[in-house]
């Protein structure tokens, strides 16, 4: 672009033309003409110097640029002249653009972004699949694929796991990950400092011994970003491990959103698990060779899988369920858990944000239209003195685009603030989701195109209006006699109707989501959530399975029960709403399972007094007691659903339940009690079957245990005393996940809260915009009807009658728009039905409250211009033209 060299261009052109004239003068003088005469003739023969320059500029293509500059100058001048208009437009548009940018940022991070690894498009997840879904293959199959598959460049494995980490005498539970040594090499991830892991780290006896890498976030927060962390020895699950590198945090694993602190080669994971030919605990990811097609790779993996399965002893049913065949899934975006969880709420939010933007856009259009009307005379003058209609349109659009550009800039700032809040929202609680919401090109392009669309949409209607103007009519009249006025008024009203209807849709949507959330929060859990503190205790690795740990468990209960303020306390292996779960297969004499599923049951080991602590009633039989110790007869308690399922109407007490999914054949428990149903994990789903065992009789070794304590006052205040007391039982105990039951339940409603909170904010913005629009159109109407109102007052209309007249108009407009919006609300409600809970999409109460809210605001917005109208002085009003 030559725009930057504009000054140079002018100077050069000037010099060139001057040289021409001076040379000509010199030549004339040389031929005997007097200097004066020569100068005169040169000028005359050249013609207008300025016209020539102008033609040169035009020939050079500078005219458009000049016009653009003039348009911009004019745009800024008009904006400065009516700062109120500009402020409202910019603010509402900035809110719209900001909301969209913020939500799209999350959408981008969760749904669209590829993993920041080398050639993500060639990565695939290798999964064993069957009727019950897909899962990672067992470790021996992974080894087979890694060593023998020829269609893959490399095959790597990873598996998340909590790890007990000891460093500097401090012990904590870190978010760990087992990785095959080649994992980061295959992904092409470079370490921040130090080195990454390599295939040779799979061997336990490397030159540096056992090694590990940590994430940048963990490095910063646990080691203060100290570079001497390299070479430091820490203990992971009791094994000494040397830290050799720091990995840029965001690409520690292939699970988007899941933070990882430390990655340790798989060689140090549980060897029994690694040898197990049917244990599903891994994710396996492979990089296709450039020449290999995905089908070819699948066929080869399938063949290897068949040869592997030939040597596996497994029930035919289980084979069909989990080990039927191999599937390859694209891995460019990583595991899809987060996407599955958030695709619906985020899509809904994007649509709602889009509606807010639409409302802001409509608002801007009507404001610009009103202003174009006010400037009709101005336009008429310009047309009359020869301005092109095209120029007038262009000037209007330029003005709109300038407003949009300011709004977009402000919108991005707002979006950054919003994103900070959203990141915090996601990172909250025990299952933190870490999102990288830094601005990227895709998000900026999204914002830019939104802005341009808005600018064009809002600028074109008033521009066309201005261009259609008849200069004669425009010049003649006062506001009354302008020809296009009635049409403009109609268009203005249509825009306001659209705005009010949009806010009705948004408010009703927000209402539905808020009601859903309230309903979910009120769901009968089957236990009393108020006043319960919950935490987890993990023993040092070496204590596992030792009598010390068993003694510690009883010790914990005794200590905790003595703390003043604790009314009762109980232990459980699976705390409700903690996200943990454990399943087993059982056999009950007299019960004939129809499907494999019928044998499945959720399982938890609990201590005496646990049910009492949560407020779960014992319906039949008895609770566990201290007498149900490890060597006592094996007993179990069922929840009501399980009792009814397996024993129908028969008395379950005394019935026998045998676990069938363990190698031991003698795991038969006698049912001694039935407790009330309680929800375990998902508030939306019906109660599942549960079997409870006494802690000392647990079928599985207990690696950590949850504690629930019912407190007299605020449970949060007791968290410190509890932690201290538990640690004093045994120095090798680690207390984690301290939270209140209410908070934990709140966290399971993260998505619902996200949608409800944001849709409420969107609804509020739309409401404000609609009021502005309504106020604008009514105020304009009052100005236009000044004479008429003056006559009415002169003829004896009361002040309140005038107010009522305007108010009635506003309310009628609003009511009409609300009615128009109802079918849209119903249609959207149908789509969103799956996300709603305990409230129908056509819930009359919600619709009525949204409508009422709108009407109240409309009334406020109408009373102001109404009051102004009623205060008109008839004598002045009538004299106005």
């Amino acid at each position, binding site marked *: 672009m030559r725009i930057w060299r504009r000054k140079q261009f002018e100077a050069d052109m000037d010099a060139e*033309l001057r040289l*021409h004239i001076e040379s000509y003068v010199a030549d004339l003088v040389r031929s005997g003409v007097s200097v004066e005469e020569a100068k005169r003739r040169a000028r005359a023969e050249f*013609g207008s110097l300025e016209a*020539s320059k102008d*033609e040169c500029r035009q*020939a050079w293509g500078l005219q458009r640029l000049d016009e653009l500059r003039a348009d911009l100058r004019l745009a800024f001048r008009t904006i400065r002249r009516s700062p109120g208009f500009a402020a409202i437009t910019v603010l509402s548009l900035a809110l719209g653009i900001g909301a969209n940018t913020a939500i799209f940022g999350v959408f981008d991070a969760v749904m669209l972004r590829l993993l920041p690894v080398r050639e993500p498009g060639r990565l695939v997840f290798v999964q064993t699949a069957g009727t019950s879904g897909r899962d990672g293959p067992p470790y021996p199959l992974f080894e087979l694929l890694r060593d023998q598959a020829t269609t893959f460049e490399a095959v790597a494995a990873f598996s998340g796991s909590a790890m007990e980490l000891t460093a500097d005498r401090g012990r904590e539970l870190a978010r760990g990950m087992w990785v095959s040594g080649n994992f980061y090499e295959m992904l092409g991830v470079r370490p921040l400092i130090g080195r990454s892991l390599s295939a040779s780290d799979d061997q336990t006896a490397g030159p540096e011994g056992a090694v590990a890498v940590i994430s940048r976030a963990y490095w910063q927060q646990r080691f203060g970003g100290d570079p001497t962390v390299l070479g430091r020895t820490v203990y992971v699950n009791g094994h000494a491990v040397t830290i050799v590198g720091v990995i840029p945090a965001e690409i520690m694993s292939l699970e988007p959103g899941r933070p990882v602190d430390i990655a340790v080669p798989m060689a140090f994971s549980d060897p029994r698990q690694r040898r197990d030919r049917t244990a599903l605990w891994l994710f396996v990811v492979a990089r296709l060779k450039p020449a290999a097609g995905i089908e070819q790779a699948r066929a080869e993996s399938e063949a290897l899988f068949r040869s592997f399965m030939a040597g596996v002893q497994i029930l035919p049913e289980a084979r069909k369920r989990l080990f039927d065949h191999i599937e390859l899934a694209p891995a460019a975006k990583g595991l899809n858990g987060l996407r599955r969880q958030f695709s619906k709420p985020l899509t809904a939010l994007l649509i709602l944000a889009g509606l807010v933007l639409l409302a802001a856009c409509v608002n801007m259009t009507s404001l610009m239209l009103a202003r174009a009307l006010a400037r009709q005379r101005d336009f008429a003058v310009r047309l009359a003195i020869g301005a092109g209609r095209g120029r007038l349109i262009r000037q209007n659009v330029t003005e709109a685009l300038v407003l949009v550009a300011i709004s977009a800039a402000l919108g991005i700032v707002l979006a950054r603030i919003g994103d900070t809040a959203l990141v915090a929202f996601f990172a909250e609680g025990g299952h933190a989701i870490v999102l990288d919401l830094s601005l990227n090109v895709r998000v900026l392009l999204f914002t830019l195109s939104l802005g341009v669309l808005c600018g064009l949409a809002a600028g074109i209607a008033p521009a066309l209006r201005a261009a259609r103007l008849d200069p004669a009519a425009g010049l003649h009249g006062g506001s009354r006699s302008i020809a296009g006025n009635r049409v403009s008024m109609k268009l203005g009203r249509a825009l306001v109707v659209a705005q009010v209807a949009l806010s009705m849709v948004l408010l009703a949507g927000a209402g539905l989501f808020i009601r859903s959330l309230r309903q979910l929060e009120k769901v009968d859990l089957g236990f009393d959530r108020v006043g319960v503190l919950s935490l987890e205790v993990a023993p040092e690795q070496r204590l596992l399975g030792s009598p010390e740990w068993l003694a510690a468990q009883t010790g914990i209960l005794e200590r905790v029960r003595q703390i003043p303020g604790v009314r009762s306390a109980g232990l459980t292996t699976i705390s409700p709403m903690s996200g943990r779960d454990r399943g087993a297969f059982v056999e009950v004499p007299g019960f004939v399972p129809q499907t494999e599923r019928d044998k499945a049951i959720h399982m938890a080991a609990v201590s005496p007094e646990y049910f009492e602590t949560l407020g779960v009633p014992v319906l039949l039989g008895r609770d566990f007691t201290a007498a149900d110790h490890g060597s006592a007869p094996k007993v179990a308690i069922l929840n009501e659903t399980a009792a009814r399922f397996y024993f129908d109407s028969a008395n379950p007490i005394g019935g026998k339940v045998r676990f069938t999914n363990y190698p031991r054949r003698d795991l038969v428990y006698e049912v001694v009690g039935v407790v009330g149903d309680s929800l375990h994990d998902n508030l939306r789903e019906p109660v599942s079957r549960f079997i409870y065992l006494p802690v000392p009789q647990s079928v599985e070794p207990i690696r950590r245990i949850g504690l629930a304590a019912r407190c007299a006052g605020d449970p949060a205040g007791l968290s410190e005393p509890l932690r201290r007391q538990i640690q004093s039982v045994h120095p090798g105990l680690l207390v984690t996940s301290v939270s209140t039951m209410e908070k934990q339940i709140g966290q399971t409603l993260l998505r619902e809260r996200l949608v409800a909170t944001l849709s409420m904010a969107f609804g509020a913005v739309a409401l404000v915009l609609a009021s502005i629009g309504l106020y604008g159109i009514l105020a304009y109407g009052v100005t236009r009807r000044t004479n008429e109102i003056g006559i009415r007052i002169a003829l004896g209309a009361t002040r309140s009658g005038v107010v009522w007249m305007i108010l009635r108009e506003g309310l009628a407009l609003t009511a009409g728009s609300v009615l128009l919006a109802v079918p849209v609300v119903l249609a959207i409600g149908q789509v969103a039905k799956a996300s709603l809970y305990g409230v129908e999409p056509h819930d009359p109460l919600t619709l009525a409250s949204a409508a009422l809210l709108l009407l109240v605001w409309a009334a406020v917005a109408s009373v102001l211009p109404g009051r102004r109208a009623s205060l008109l002085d008839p004598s002045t009003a009538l004299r106005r033209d």
Partner: protein
Amino acid sequence: MSKQVELLQGTLDMLILKAVSLGGLHGYGVLLRLQQLTGGRLQIQQGSLYPALYRLERKGLITSEWGESENKRRAKFYRLSAAGRKQLKAETALWNDFSAVVAGVLRAVPGAS
């Protein structure tokens, strides 16, 4: 001085291309060259010369560079570009065809065909 001829519309560009094809010239030089070539019989509006030069340069038919004029002044010299040479050739051919056809028509006498 012999009788002056009006410049036909659209021919100025062609004449400028021809003028600068014989060697680099500054704007005033172009005017002198054209007057010399036409024996002063062609009326050229001096004011329209520069827009034409700018237009041709913008189209890439001529190139310009700053140099020193005969009387040691800074001056912008124009030179024919490769594209301009092609254009000049094409326009010359077109002009020759055109003038031959027009001349043929104008030579026609009643009843000759």
